[in-house]
């Protein structure tokens, strides 16, 4: 019950913030229109009068009017009121935990998932091309060429984002880290991108790594073949929308997954691109459902601006160690902000209301030890 109440409190807070922002935006628009020089400091003196005068006639500043709530038969004009009643309670009349939104039909995800697959296929092709380049550079014995091709290949693979978790052992072969293997980084099963990374950044002979790159191109070709038939459930898809960047925070910006190259920023940028793609495909479904779409879009923009700025200032992708303290704070902080918004997605996009937990039968009377 607590969770529902917390989440409700959160979405209500967001809604309240939006309600506060609305008159403020109106005030600014009207203020700008009415003050002859457009100087904002002058309009502020008349704030109270202007607000009162403008409210009744203000046009919708967003220029859009939501009339239908996706997946619900309740008209948008009353949807909020009805849902607010539910949110105030947090539970239904039988005292069970309930969702604050009516569930989406599972078929709503067919189109987003299909369009995401097209995107994923495109990036798999890119990864295949870069992996070939990597194999060639290794065969030539060119370390710098191979490092650059490695970055491109790994980044392309991370652009798949929302589907990588669905390939099981194939993903382990391509992007696995030595962590859970019995013999760690010396384990014969440690073969993919990170095996090549380890060699390239610890002084191994480039040619000695070529077999790993050849295997990588084979694994990517395999991936390209199975991709069209991969099934992604609505829950998995909605969950991945936040888990791609969860992985970035846990494994990439921490440096855990890229101990040798330190390319955590590059990887996070790729994860952001994948997240933006997932979010983009889901936007039609989010219409009118809480304030999730606006909150997520704005936080992703802030993260994306931070990453772009870092890239610009470094004229390329800096390693984690090359980040200044200010940059480190900026990327860590905006990622945390983005994750704080993305966490709303799975709940907003649920396709079934959680069913109540069956009661445990045969319990001794209360108070009996």
């Amino acid at each position, binding site marked *: 019950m*607590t*969770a*529902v109440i*917390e*989440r409700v409190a959160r979405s209500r807070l967001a809604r309240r913030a939006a309600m506060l922002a609305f008159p403020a935006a109106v005030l600014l628009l009207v203020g700008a229109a009415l003050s002859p020089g457009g100087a904002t400091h002058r309009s502020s003196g008349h704030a109270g009068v202007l607000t009162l005068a403008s409210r009744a006639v203000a046009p919708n500043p967003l220029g859009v009017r939501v009339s239908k709530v996706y997946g619900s038969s309740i008209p948008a004009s009353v949807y909020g009121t009805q849902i607010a009643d539910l949110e105030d309670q947090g539970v239904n009349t039988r005292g069970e*935990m309930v969702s604050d939104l009516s569930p989406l039909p599972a078929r709503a995800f067919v189109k987003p998932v299909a369009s995401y697959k097209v995107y994923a296929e495109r990036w798999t092709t890119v990864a295949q091309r870069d992996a070939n380049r990597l194999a060639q550079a290794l065969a030539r014995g060119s370390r710098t060429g191979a490092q650059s091709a490695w970055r491109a290949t790994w980044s392309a693979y991370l652009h798949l984002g929302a589907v990588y978790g669905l390939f099981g052992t194939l993903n382990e072969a391509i992007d696995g*880290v030595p*962590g*859970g*293997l*019995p*013999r*760690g980084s010396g384990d014969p099963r440690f073969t993919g991108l990170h095996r090549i990374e380890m060699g390239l950044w610890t002084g191994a002979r480039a040619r000695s790594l070529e077999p790993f790159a050849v295997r990588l191109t084979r694994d990517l070709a395999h991936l390209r073949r199975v991709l069209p038939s991969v099934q992604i459930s609505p829950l998995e898809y909605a969950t991945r929308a*936040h*888990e791609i960047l*969860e992985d970035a*925070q*846990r494994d990439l*910006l*921490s*440096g*855990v997954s890229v101990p040798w190259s330190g390319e955590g920023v590059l990887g996070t940028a790729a994860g952001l691109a994948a997240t933006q793609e997932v979010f983009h495909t889901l936007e039609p479904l989010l219409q009118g459902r809480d304030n999730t779409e606006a909150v997520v879009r704005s936080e992703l923009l802030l993260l994306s601006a931070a990453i772009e700025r870092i890239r610009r200032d470094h004229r390329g992708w800096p390693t*984690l160690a090359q980040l200044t303290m200010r940059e*480190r*704070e900026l990327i*860590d*902080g905006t990622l*945390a902000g983005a*994750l*704080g918004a*993305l*966490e709303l997605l*799975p*709940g907003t996009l649920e396709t079934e209301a*959680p069913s109540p*937990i*069956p*009661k*445990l*039968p*045969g*319990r001794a009377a*209360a108070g009996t*030890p």
Partner: protein
Amino acid sequence: MTALDRRQFMKRSMAVVGAGGVGALAGALGEAELRSGASAAGPEDPSQAALQAELLRRVPFDGPHQAGVLSRPQAQATFVALDSIAPNRQLLAETLQTLSARARGLTQGEAVGAQELDDPPPDSGILGPLDMPDGLTVTIALGASLFDDRYGLGTRRPARLQPMPNFPNDELDPQRTHGDVLLQVCAEHRDTVVHTVRELMRTVAGRLTPRWSIDGFQSARRGPSASSNPRNLFAFRDGTANPDTGDARLMNSLIWVQRGPGEPAWTAGGTYQVVRTIRMHVEFWDRVGMFEQQNMIGRDRVTGAPLGGADEFEDPRYELDPKGKRIPLNAHIRLANPRTPPTADQRIVRRGYNYDRGMDPAGDLDQGLVFVAFNQDVKRQFATIQQRLAEEPMVDYISPVGGGYFFAPPGSRGPADWVGSRLFA
């Protein structure tokens, strides 16, 4: 004598005669002496009186088994793994002997001895003139590496002692894993633990050298009842299904190594200690819906009751829920302890601590669990459970980063004995 020689001499002589025998210098105190020394606060202040009672609580150091295994965990802990640099077996044995002597003194309460003014005091003194026991326990355990070829102990290795393997999904950092000796220092107050570790490090300097350490704390016991277990940093109650540690027969079948074939005789009365430093990705966890959190664990987050139940200690009745409609089949509690007759002898005693190491370089909270478990046979018990848990949904939210397998020898038989003596006998 140079300063160094004298310091060494002091330590050695304390070791040889035992802390009690040093007399005027420092010594274990009787109950009355402790009480009279501690009664600075008048009984009119109830909070001071309660604190004094807590500080006076003394856990015996000597006994058939070591302390700090079956008792309810004290509020604060530090785990220190040490590697031996002792040049030979004799010096290693002497160091362990000294370690026990100093640990005994600290756990039983000591007066901080006066010294010649130009000598460094034998006790750092950070607890004042009296080292009050404060429920302190020092549990000494040995790692598999101690039984390599350095000290000729290979033939005496406890039969089930192996280096902790890399389980699937582990991210073990070698600098935070394994070790020749593990010290588990637990007390009710942080300063007591800090003081004890500081004194013990002085005691073993030059012979045992730190490999890794981690500090732990218990969440306050916030009820609702006195038996309600405290929460871990995922907010769920931890330790609920522990076997009854007051049941001596049960402990002999689950925890203590028994005399008999298959184990060297010296290990009887000891136990295998598993330590796993498990980072919890708490930010990620906090972004997961309550429903999913509860389904991953299998318990209600507020009450700690198995899902569908109302009381923390209620039997989850898995036999009535074979399809996992109430408690998912891959829920943590269901995999960890299926409560079936064939898994009954796999049960372990958990005695974990939360840890909080501040923030990591990426600005994330470095928090988690120092998972501690005691069992009679690591393979039959802990490792079997761990294999069942390999694919539980919770693995995404945790990263085991360190720890190790250790063997805690039987207890010291008295002031003249020491933990590990039978290994060298």
